[in-house]
């Protein structure tokens, strides 16, 4: 194995370790970015000789960071997990409180604007909603 592959294995293992150790979403993103930069710098001499392998490995590490970040988000916010915890008696968040919190997210991300007491999609919201509709259709998710 060449050095670049060892660096890649190390970066991948460290991403997994930081996912376990670093619980904050922003902190995890910062750790991931630092690891990717570290990999890019340490493997840069070999990137010139093997650009395709370097690019594929970088893409794999980036995808890993993105995937782990999404999993962390879901673990923290999953309503079904909260519900399961509530049935088990270890959590107390009410189902509707969880749902209501998401309404605040819609406003915070400027995806909706309030008009006559009703929530209407903002231009950004319309664009995202169109992408969501396309994804639902493509992935056969009940729309």
């Amino acid at each position: 194995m060449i050095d670049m592959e060892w660096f890649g294995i190390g970066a991948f293992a460290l991403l997994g370790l930081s996912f376990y150790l670093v619980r904050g979403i922003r902190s995890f993103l910062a750790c991931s970015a630092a690891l990717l930069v570290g990999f890019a710098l340490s493997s840069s001499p070999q990137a010139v000789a093997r650009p395709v392998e370097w690019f594929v490995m970088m893409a794999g590490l980036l995808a890993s960071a993105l995937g782990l970040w999404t999993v962390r988000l879901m673990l923290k916010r999953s309503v079904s997990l909260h519900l399961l915890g509530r049935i088990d008696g270890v959590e107390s968040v009410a189902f509707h409180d969880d749902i209501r919190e998401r309404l605040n997210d819609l406003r915070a991300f400027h995806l909706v604007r309030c008009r006559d007491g009703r929530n209407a999609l903002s231009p950004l919201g319309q664009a995202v909603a169109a992408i969501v509709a396309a994804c639902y259709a493509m992935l056969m998710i009940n729309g």
Partner: protein
Amino acid sequence: MTQVFLAAADILLTAAGSELALRRRKMQTGLWRVLVIWISGYAAAAAWLVRHGHSGVVVFTIFWSGTFLAWFGMRSHIESSIVLRMLFLLRQRPMTDAELIAAYASHYGEAARVEELHRGGLVVRGRDGIHVTPKGKTVLLFASKLR
């Protein structure tokens, strides 16, 4: 470069196969099927690389793992995100908070979620109510360690 195209084609085929395996199931109830498909796809591509004497098995393994994690995260998020579902519902017409919550609850409310947990073997219904199964407790323990 041929290896890259083959890897990309293999991943696309695996992702398409996962969709067929899920067939309108939620990820939480179809996870094992998906894992079997992704592991099979990886094994087939890695075996091809080794048999043809290519040196990119490590590079491919990292790329494959990353792609699986990203696919899993994005697929689960698109499927279960409440914010995305609300945006989808608001395409029909503007709604008040109460209308939007009611529309969402009628699509995937508490009862539907409990039913999904039941289908996934995470809860059971007894005479005295709903209980979390050992599998459900394992999921909760795992989630609490990673939150």
